[in-house]
């Protein structure tokens, strides 16, 4: 042990450390929970602290190195309970916090920067933030927050974050867009949207205080007496049978409490995707299998007194493998002669195990003969094959779960999950417990993006808790997060289209081979959504979708924002540009002749839905709200689309190797799974006229809790901060499917609205009595009061006190749930401006604009933050992110450096337009916004390269070498 003397947040401390202890673990041990694990390589900045005033990464500093120095964390800020430092205020007002996992680090970075430069340039800010990776915001609002903080500290009063209103171009508006900072959303209102007071405002996030102050709020921010640390022994082989395991030496290691593997745990089949019951087949997993099917697959799990002991125990487990041949490419995997990945006898529901095809997906609007007849007589037929890669979600908080037995000896699992209710139901049979013996708690999450729509750690932790009767913690390392959690499906995609001379689509045939890795968790549903998205955007009389889901020995694919849409839309929108070019048509004009509008049928959906609307209602769903024309008009104006025809812009005379281009892509997503996604909400009124809102909905950092609070507040005539949101906890809150499929605002939001309506009903009855008004229907709720038509009013506090204490006492409360038969799509137009260096193939994206129709926007700040963040993730998909394996199936770039997600100092300027429509089925007219913005950047960049250079690249990511090869082919 080493004694370290340091000054922590102004207080001299003398602490005893292991010589190898990191400053990160020391600080957390000392209660500074704002300093968080992101990678152990210093690359995420989640663990950034000030060391003598300089921002450094505590995960790559030894605690001993900090000896003799001053260490400062965000806990040092001397602000009263409930109050914020001006820098923290700026972060809240700008909407710069999504999950807030790295909020403490960002606040410290800002303090350090403003200390040496009170009025920094945008570039200086971006450079100062370059050490803190943000997977969530797209950095636009973070930069704004630093500028706002600088202004506040200089004593200025910065403008509040309010959207800039932009006139509707399709209704003749001609005035230019007012100048405004990039972080401010451009809002294009619709005339038919009723006035609201809380809905539609960029109110601060309801969870902002705990995030920006770095308060303990995440899974790992608890201390449990006697807690053990778990580690999972991972497979070094891509495909092997486990012949024997000798765990004697591991068990003999002092401090080891349990070693679990295939030979000492029950074999219960399941599918890990967090989906509604019954989970889609096949159920091809067991907690500890006797076969490993990718490098990083589970072999065994250990619980021990420390992480180091658990790791050492893993190294001491002797495993005898029978190594088998492996296959990584999805097309090879389903070809004859490929190794069979699921040759076990107890997995039911594999479509064709011998050919590695767990599921086949097919949906078509006409018969095979009919579609082939259209192709046979069409004027033009185009066909192109595309390939897209495995992209990892990389939430800065990796998967983590902590489990323990409570005083009733029920199993409690505190987990970073998007699906607490699914996780509880799914883990129960694996542990041999009834559902009632399990409680799953979802605290704040540090991002998920679909990767946490999975029952990934809960079974391991549950098994270890039951085996040891001690609290157990399991956190994935960053490398494990890359290779042993979940990843976006790689696909080989072929589009074949029959087109008439005017560019109208006559038939579309969309074929996919989807790489699910060795387990099919989301294989069927993701590949189904690819077909839904590939064949819904354009009207076409004959459509056919076929997909083979392929088992391979790559890391396991699962849910990732967009859920099959980014793959489909990269292919579709690239294909559409190619068709337009071949026909000599403007690519937007050609699309315009085909894109769906309000009232048009979405006729492929019944054939591909998990539980399609038509299956239940017997009819084809139609577009109920759509502002594609307006989105396109706004996006084209904002990017200066006319420059496509300007040769001196496209080929700048002073930069001979540079070609510039503009690219376009149309996007569409869904809003929840119809007739399947359900959310519940419960609201009760407190003595002071405030309300508790309990929801099972799962805010990943998106601002969902805030949006739900706004919906309740709007109905109840209060402010969002009068709604105390608690979510999600399987013991305390109503059921909700969880955060996926773009369902929270639309489904959970409507449940909240219904519950609020129920509470409102009780309030107005009592208020009518107090105000002596005959018809309670005449009572209006606003400004924390209930108003009679004649202007008299009573406060909600008085209503609450009356109800709770005075007469005919009752708890004013209501519970509601919601499911929808509709899934109204949001629409969007994405444009990209790029430069290509034709001598090197380097592509630089110089500007992105997206105009999104997401219905009525409940919170413009969080909604535009969703769009900005998704665009940056999409930029990674377009240009860098690709988990690459060597020939043995080992990842060569399972770290942030080589993998590369965009940093503050390399994201291009971005603008977001929110184009309103009034969606009749949504709460206050809302549709979804969380996923659509990840769909369009890759095809828009690809099409911009085509515009700039005339070459096509049909494989993602669009690396410099791929572009160079296309240019020099």
């Amino acid at each position: 042990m080493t004694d370290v003397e340091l000054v922590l947040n102004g207080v001299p401390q003398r602490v005893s450390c292991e010589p190898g202890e990191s400053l990160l673990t020391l600080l957390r041990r000392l209660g500074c929970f704002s300093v968080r694990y992101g990678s152990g390589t210093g690359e995420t900045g989640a663990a950034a602290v000030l060391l003598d005033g300089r921002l450094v990464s505590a995960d790559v500093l030894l605690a001993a190195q900090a000896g003799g120095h001053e260490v400062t964390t965000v806990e040092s800020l001397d602000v009263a309970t409930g109050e914020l430092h001006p820098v923290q205020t700026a972060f809240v007002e700008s909407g710069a916090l999504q999950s807030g996992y790295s909020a403490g680090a960002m606040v410290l970075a800002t303090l350090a920067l403003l200390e040496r430069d009170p009025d920094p340039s945008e570039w200086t800010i971006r450079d100062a933030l370059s050490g803190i990776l943000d997977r969530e915001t797209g950095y636009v609002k973070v930069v704004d927050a630093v500028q706002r903080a600088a202004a506040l500290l200089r004593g200025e009063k910065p403008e509040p974050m309010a959207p800039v209103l932009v006139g509707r171009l399709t209704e003749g508006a001609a005035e230019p867009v007012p100048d405004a900072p990039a972080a401010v959303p451009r809002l294009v209102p619709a005339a038919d949207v009723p006035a609201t007071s809380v809905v539609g405002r960029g109110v601060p996030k309801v969870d902002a205080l705990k995030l920006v102050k770095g308060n303990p709020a995440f899974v790992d921010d608890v201390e449990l007496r006697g807690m053990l640390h778990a580690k999972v022994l991972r497979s070094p082989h891509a495909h092997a049978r486990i012949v024997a395991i000798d765990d004697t030496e591991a068990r003999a290691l002092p401090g080891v409490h349990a070693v679990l593997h295939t030979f000492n745990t029950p074999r219960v089949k399941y599918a890990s995707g967090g989906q509604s019951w019954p989970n889609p087949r096949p159920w091809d997993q067991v907690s500890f299998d006797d076969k490993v099917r990718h490098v990083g697959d589970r072999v065994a799990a250990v619980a021990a007194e420390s992480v180091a002991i658990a790791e050492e125990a893993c190294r001491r487990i002797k495993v005898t493998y029978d190594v088998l041949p492996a296959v990584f490419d999805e097309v090879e995997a389903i070809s004859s002669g490929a190794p069979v990945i699921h040759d076990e006898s107890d997995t039911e529901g594999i479509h064709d195990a011998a050919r590695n095809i767990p599921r086949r997906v097919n949906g078509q609007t006409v018969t095979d003969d009919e579609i082939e007849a259209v192709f046979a007589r069409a004027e033009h037929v185009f066909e192109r094959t595309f390939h897209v890669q495995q992209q990892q979600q990389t939430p800065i908080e990796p998967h983590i779960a902590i489990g323990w037995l409570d005083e009733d000896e029920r199993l409690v699992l505190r987990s970073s999950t998007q699906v607490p209710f699914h996780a509880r139901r799914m883990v129960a049979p694996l542990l041999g417990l009834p559902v009632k013996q399990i409680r799953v708690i979802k605290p704040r999450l540090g991002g998920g993006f679909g990767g946490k729509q999975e029952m990934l750690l809960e079974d391991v932790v549950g098994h270890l808790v039951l085996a040891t009767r001690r609290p157990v913690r399991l956190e994935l390392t960053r490398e494990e997060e890359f290779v042993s959690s979940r990843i976006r499906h790689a696909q080989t995609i072929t589009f074949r289209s029959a087109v008439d001379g005017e560019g109208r689509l006559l038939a579309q045939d969309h074929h996919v081979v989807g790489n699910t890795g060795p387990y099919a968790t989301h294989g069927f549903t993701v590949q189904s959504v690819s077909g839904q998205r590939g064949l819904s955007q354009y009207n076409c009389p004959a459509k056919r979708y076929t997909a083979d889901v392929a088992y391979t020995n790559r890391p396991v694919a699962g849910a990732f924002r967009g859920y099959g849409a980014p793959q489909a839309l990269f292919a579709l929108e690239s294909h559409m540009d190619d068709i337009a070019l071949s026909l000599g048509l403007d690519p937007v004009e050609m699309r315009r002749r085909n894109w769906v509008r309000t009232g048009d049928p979405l006729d492929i959906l019944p054939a591909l839905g998990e539980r399609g609307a038509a299956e239940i209602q017997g009819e084809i769903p139609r577009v109920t709200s759509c502002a594609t024309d307006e989105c396109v008009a706004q996006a084209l104006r904002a990017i200066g689309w006319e420059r496509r025809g300007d040769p001196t812009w496209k080929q700048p005379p002073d930069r001979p190797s540079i070609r510039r281009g503009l690219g376009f892509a149309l996007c569409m997503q869904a809003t929840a799974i119809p007739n399947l996604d359900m959310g519940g909400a419960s609201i009760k009124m407190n003595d002071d006229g405030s309300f508790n809102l309990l929801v099972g909905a799962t805010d990943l950092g998106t601002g969902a809790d805030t949006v739900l609070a706004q919906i309740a507040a709007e109905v109840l005539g209060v402010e969002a901060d009068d709604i105390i949101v608690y979510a999600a906890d399987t013991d305390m809150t109503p059921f909700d499917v969880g955060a996926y499929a773009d369902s929270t605002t639309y489904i959970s939001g409507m449940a909240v609205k219904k519950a609020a309506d129920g509470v409102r009903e009780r309030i107005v009855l009592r208020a009518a009595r107090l105000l002596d008004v005959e018809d309670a229907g005449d009572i209006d709720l606003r400004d924390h009061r209930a108003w009679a038509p004649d202007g008299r009013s009573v406060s909600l506090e008085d209503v609450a006190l009356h109800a709770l204490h005075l007469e005919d006492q009752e708890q004013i409360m209501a519970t509601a749930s919601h499911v929808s038969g509709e899934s109204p799509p949001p629409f969007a137009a994405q444009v990209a401006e790029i430069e290509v260096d034709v001598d090197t193939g380097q592509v630089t994206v110089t500007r992105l604009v997206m105009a999104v129709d997401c219905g009525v926007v409940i919170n413009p700040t969080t909604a535009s933050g969703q769009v900005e963040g998704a665009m940056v993730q999409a930029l990674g998909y377009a240009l860098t992110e690709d988990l690459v394996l060597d020939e043995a199936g080992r990842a060569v770039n399972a770290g942030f450096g080589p993998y590369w997600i965009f940093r503050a100092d390399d994201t291009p300027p971005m603008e977001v337009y929110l184009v309103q429509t009034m969606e009749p089925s949504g709460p206050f007219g809302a549709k979804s916004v969380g996923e659509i913005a990840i769909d369009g950047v890759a095809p828009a960049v690809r099409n911009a390269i085509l515009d700039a250079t005339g070459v096509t690249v049909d494989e993602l990511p669009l690396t410099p070498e791929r572009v160079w090869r296309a240019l020099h082919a």
Partner: protein
Amino acid sequence: MVTVTTYWRPTTMADALELVGRADTRVLAGGTRLNADASTDPVEVVDLQALDLGGIGPESEGVLRAGAMATLQDLADGEEVPAVVREAARRERPSTLRAQGTVGGCVADGSGESELLAALLVHEAQVHLDTDGGAETAPLETFLADLPLGAGRIVTAVSFRTSGTAAAARTARTPADRAIVAAVARAADGVRRIAVTGVASTPVLVQPGDQVQPVGDFRGSSEYRRALVDVLVARVQEEIS
């Protein structure tokens, strides 16, 4: 985190040299690479922070000397430091790791992707070392070719020339990503020096027309890297002409 069994913080160079002469000791500078190493082999670390090896200042006419413990940020901020070196220092790591990472650590690491090392190569950098046999100086290119650094040796400073005209060119997946290949050139006193990254285990000095034999990886094949060298070397040469 690296597996550390003992942490040393010597206060004299003699003590430091004695420690780093032992088996299983590693020099700890900023820690951005050593501490990020997940290797389970136990090591003793010798932290140089108490040896007063920081600072950047003139060594002689036209020559700057950066102490081994000067941070990358110090170099990026150094007003006397040539612009190409400052920019390369900024590019070397993001803000946090730049405030921690050191000049000495960068040269001792010798990464083949380091644009800072390429910039230092063309500025005729010399690496100063202390050994138990006394002080030594080696041209950076020789030092890099001899890596890894032998036991019992500590980099104390890197000096480099400030004169001349320099230029840099690079190709990368994104503006802030490490270059797949970068070229840096400098002309001074009628002599041109050109260095490239991404073609060998360390950055190397090249002559125009030299054939490099890079090992390809997922960011760029050997063939592509060779083509980039041709393009980027031509660009930086033209710029300094």
